[in-house]
């Protein structure tokens, strides 16, 4: 700063003009908005999972029926007078309701669920237990996670890489037979994975009898770990291929069209005119500008793995997170439903947040916070 104060800019203002501050302000704003989004989304899910108190009525009715039945079946209670028995039943009902938290008003409970969920204290399930007998939601979800990661990871990753590479090679010679075949086959992606799953079960399990109908491992499970892995692999083929095939052609078609748009840019023509090798053109002139989109898709795919495939897992009796979530809904187990949703919501928010910075890294045109 000069002594004569010509360029006297207040310190604060100077600071606010720096890139660091701009990024910081943007980051904070982004975190706050994303957090509010997650909070509202989770609270809505909790409200829907309670159906505005309707689920309470179902649960209270179930408790009453269960306790009355168990008292009626208990030989010890037969000697009691009806008044004493009625009192005992009521006591047990209120105890059970207290255990499930039904004695508190709905609003208090939902806010409790929300704050627990946001701090990732997933708590205890109401009805469900993990295979090892624990009621902790974290354990219930963790126990199923490997199965889902295996199924979804295998299928989504192979789907992504197969379609991107095939699309790239198709975009090189569009109008060829294979290109036209992919275009013609792209409407097949209208059908969901379970639909192909049924056909696969029909062909490979029922008629050819070479692959199992469902499940994740033979019964009883093989003792040696190699046989175990082979058995899991055998069970994985059908569900994974139905997940892949159901979106393969549309995915190739979309990527192909996307690459074609970029490969008809003037600078690509220019590169071709310069006589650059095809490989360099692809890598530096087509893939480079499409990188942000590829990364976005890949990131969304990675968090999509977490949710599992509810229906495909149900059709193939695959013991993954999707089926657990479905069972949790059937058992009105709100902690499990909320637990699985909050993890997805956090992963999604985190991905969206990180993508902004990744864009700035890979795309020189993008500036964070500008």
């Amino acid at each position, binding site marked *: 700063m000069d002594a004569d104060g010509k360029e006297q800019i207040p310190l604060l203002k100077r600071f606010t003009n720096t890139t660091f501050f701009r990024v910081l302000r943007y980051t904070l704003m982004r975190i706050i908005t994303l957090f509010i989004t997650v909070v509202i989304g989770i609270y809505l899910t909790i409200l829907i999972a309670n159906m505005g108190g309707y689920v309470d009525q179902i649960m209270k009715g179930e408790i009453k029926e269960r306790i009355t039945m168990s008292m009626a079946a208990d030989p010890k209670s037969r000697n009691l007078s009806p008044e004493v028995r009625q009192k005992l039943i009521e006591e047990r009902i209120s105890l059970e309701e207290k255990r499930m938290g039904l004695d508190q008003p709905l609003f208090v409970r939902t806010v409790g669920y929300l704050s627990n969920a946001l701090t990732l204290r997933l708590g205890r399930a109401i009805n469900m237990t993990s295979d090892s007998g624990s009621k902790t939601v974290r354990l219930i979800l963790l126990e199923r996670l490997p199965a889902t990661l295996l199924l979804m990871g295998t299928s989504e990753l192979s789907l992504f890489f197969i379609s991107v590479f095939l699309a790239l090679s198709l975009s090189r010679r569009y109008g060829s037979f294979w290109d036209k075949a992919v275009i013609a086959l792209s409407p097949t992606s209208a059908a969901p994975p379970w639909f192909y799953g049924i056909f696969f079960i029909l062909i490979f399990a029922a008629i050819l009898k070479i692959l199992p109908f469902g499940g994740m491992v033979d019964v009883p499970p093989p003792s040696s770990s190699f046989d175990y892995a082979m058995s899991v692999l055998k069970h994985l083929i059908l569900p994974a291929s139905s997940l892949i095939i159901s979106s393969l052609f549309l995915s190739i078609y979309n990527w192909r069209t996307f690459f074609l748009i970029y490969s008809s840019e003037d600078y690509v023509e220019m590169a071709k005119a310069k006589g650059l090798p095809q490989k360099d053109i692809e890598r530096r002139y087509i893939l480079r500008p499409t990188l942000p989109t590829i990364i976005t898709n890949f990131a969304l795919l990675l968090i999509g793995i977490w949710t599992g495939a509810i*229906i495909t897992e149900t059709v193939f009796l695959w013991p993954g997170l999707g089926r657990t979530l479905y069972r949790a809904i059937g058992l009105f187990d709100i902690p499990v439903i909320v637990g699985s949703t909050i993890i997805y919501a956090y992963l999604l928010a985190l991905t969206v947040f990180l993508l902004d910075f990744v864009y700035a890294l890979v795309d020189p045109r993008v500036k964070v916070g500008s």
Partner: protein
Amino acid sequence: MNTIKTSFKQILQYPSAIVGIIVILILIGVAIYTMITIPYHEAIRKWRGGEEVWYQNPKYAPPSWYNLFSKKKQPISFALSSTNGQAEKVVNHPGGGVSTIDITYTFDYPYDDFPQELILYFTSTYESKQPFVSIQWITPDKRKIKVANFGVSHQLTYRFAQDEKLTRKFNGTNPIIGLFSDPNQSTPQPLKGTYQLVINGVAFEENSDLNAEFVLHGKLFGLAGTDNNRRDLVLPLLWGTPVALAFGLLASLGTLLLTMIFAAIGTWYGGWVDALIQRITEINLVLPFLSILIMVGTFYSRSIWVILGATILLSIFTGSIKSYRAIFLQVKESGYIEAARAYGASNTRIIFNYLIPRMIPLLIPGMVSSIPSFVFLEASLAILGLGDPVLPTWGKIINDADVDGALYKGYYYWVLEPAVLLMMTGLGFAMLGYALDRVFNPRLREL
């Protein structure tokens, strides 16, 4: 008008579009035919009915046209009733209030396998004294076999295979095999030809009458076969068509129109309205779509219309609202909007008369291509056991079959019939949508 004509001509240049249109027209035709011939209440009554509606049908019977593809001809089920002239009924009055009632059922049996069951459903009217019947079986080679004789109450069901006396007559073998097998063969094989079942009845009262329906439960049935509850699958296959079309059309139309209206309002007003719509879209992204639909189905109502409403609500604020917004932002700056604003057109007029109509060409291909996903969504929910409890739908058939282990037990027709219809619907709309997309978005045509 002219633009519609030229677009239509362009559409017809795509073979896939023609196939798609034909498939859709067939489906619409089937839907209209179904709604006229089988009224809604009749369909529901039958679909929800049990043994009393479907007693004529065997369980798990594949469709009759299986015989066209197999060398061994399987018996096809049928029912003959004496009340409507399918059987010969002769009534004589020898006097003294006594009458003889002879009912003769004549049928051809050209099959290579034995039927599952033979049943006679008797109904009789009398005051105190029951009519008496004796049943006789006449084979094609004119052997006469006495089946049974007994008194008939007001309603009586006689099952051949469960008659122990008859079983003893055939030395312990199933009476059905005994009645149909060729005596000259060492292994039981059905004798082909014309069989006769004769019921000789005697009624002892003036106004007494006797009727009987003869039901043969073969191994095949009808055009589509039957399920585990003896229900004829033709009914749900037919009724699934209007349900699937209505669900797909309403869901895609509702979603797209509402999405477009919100996108238009957001871009036109800008400011906090736009920001609010953007935030709602982001929140909706966090909500688990399928889980919420499952929750609505489990906790609240499995009615298809409630699910439809929830589907539309959850599908409005998705990624497509952002792409529409981007296009509206361009349209907003165009000259004719400027002109409309200059002459003082109201906001609603600009939004609904100028902004949204401009987007209709973009809307049509999107709408047609999104129909299959909604049709399959209904089936997906049904697979999870959340299908409409009342309506017969394609997804419901697949779910019933899945629960019953149809693929495991080998009842492939049960799964394949609704699956083929679902696939036809999906492909029909997807193919047409694809062609429409190219006609209305010429930029795609070069690629």
